[in-house]
């Protein structure tokens, strides 16, 4: 079954504005989405990236090191999930109710290239 990765972008400060009760409700939704994927046996991996500390490297000589795009841009890549789905459309369908969208973030849905398949076809 094809694998997909969703990349979650958001403003890391957005939750600072929520009240504890609102955070509670947000957490229930986030947790519920992961739980649903886990119960369906689809989830193959997920991780959160740390906030704030990170650099972007460009070029070789000279190499330019900048504080990542996240200091200028409002939205930062905050974490990702990997899961199985029947097709890209199905992956979109599974992502549609991710609370990230409700809380104003962005989700990028990508298919992970199956390299063994690619080698066979070559």
């Amino acid at each position, binding site marked *: 079954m094809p694998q997909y990765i969703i990349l979650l972008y958001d403003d*890391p400060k957005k*939750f*600072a504005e*929520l*009240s*504890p*009760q*609102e*955070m*509670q409700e*947000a*957490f*229930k939704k*986030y*947790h519920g*989405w*992961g739980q649903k994927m886990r119960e369906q046996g689809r989830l193959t991996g*997920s*991780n*959160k990236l740390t*906030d704030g500390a990170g650099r972007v490297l460009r070029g070789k000589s000279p190499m330019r090191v900048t504080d990542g795009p996240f200091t200028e841009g409002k939205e930062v890549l*905050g*974490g990702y999930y990997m899961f199985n789905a029947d097709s890209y459309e199905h992956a979109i369908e599974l992502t549609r109710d991710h609370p990230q969208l409700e809380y104003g973030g962005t989700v990028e849905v990508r298919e992970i290239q199956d390299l063994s398949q690619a080698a066979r076809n070559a």
Partner: protein
Amino acid sequence: MPEPDARITSVVDHLFRTSAGQLVSYLTRVLGPAHLDLAEEAVQDALAKALQTWPFSGIPDNPPGWLLHVARNRALDLVRHRGVVLQKTSEVVAELSQPRAAPRLELPEALRDDELCMIFLACNPALSRDSRVALSLKAVSGFSVKEIARAFLCEPATIAQRLVRAKRQIREQGLAFELPPSHQLGKSLDSVLEVIYLLFNEGYAAHEGDDLVRQDLCSEALRLALLVADSPVSQPKAHALVSLLAFQGARLAARVDDQGELVLLQDQDRCKWDSRLIALGSRRLAMSAEGEELSQFHVQAAIASIHAQAKDPSATDWEAILDLYDDLMALNPSSVVALNRIVALGKVHGPECALDELSAIQEDPALRDYYLLPSTRASLLAETGEFSQAANYFAAALGRPCSEPERRFLTRRMQECRDQALRLQKPS
């Protein structure tokens, strides 16, 4: 393994808000009450971090312990980065640098004592009543400025101002983070109970919208009342307040019908009353009977218990209620109590008698904007068959401030009285 996870999830259901109050209280003790702002910021950051981390990592074995650990670290960061001047820096740093606690689902008992001290700090009689209410909700109960504003139907900026003022007073007057010493206990406890009573009443008032926030206010008030009543600084009147809130809270669900319309006490489906809360009310009323003092909470709880015990409206012991209102008038001779007493009087001695007494408070300036004054007169007039006049008084009630559900209720009653008046005019 669905079982342990389900257990943890249910713990987490109430975790954020209850932890917020407890952790702010704890950090306020550690950092000192002058740094309440810092405590709040550290806790807010810890909660936000949990929200951003747990969906990926799963819920930790000991969620409150996790939050405590992160909040400590965050407080330490803030202290260092801002160069905050503390009284006993090395002790504070040692306290905040403790290793993560062993897995356990509840916060240490000591945090509950901190919470109690926080209630007494937030309700310090040196602060204005409005500030006490706002600060209690913010620091003890984990409500946001916006939520407090919504609950009290005012602007967030107003609430924010009250909080700033209260915190400045705490700093400038050096208000202590402690349980009140015995010679101040009476006054301090009265102040705490008054705030809890106000919180409950605000939640209980029949406003439309934000039902959840309002129900939260009621259950939070009951939680705080229990916390105080079961503490070492409790007095019988604290149990009386628990009793009153439990009896009133028992009727919350029955007060509104499926269409969101108000249902008067006499028309409520008594099966919908919460029997567990009624039992709690009765137990606490019994516990409140110790000691000499008769507070107004005692009397109000006793009145509420009579309503709660009546199987149907006709079984209500109105004579006992009238006696209790006489007691309440002696303790707290306010215009609102007087009005309520007149309602009981009408039930015992008839509407004409009540109408006579009503004339005495008709011009009371304290009731000038109180819609229940004309609407009580209207109800009494309707009972005597004066429907046309009753309709006029319902109309007068509509001219005073009231919530939307109350407005719809008054409009409905006004229309009924007009219809009745017309029917009586027509020769049949």
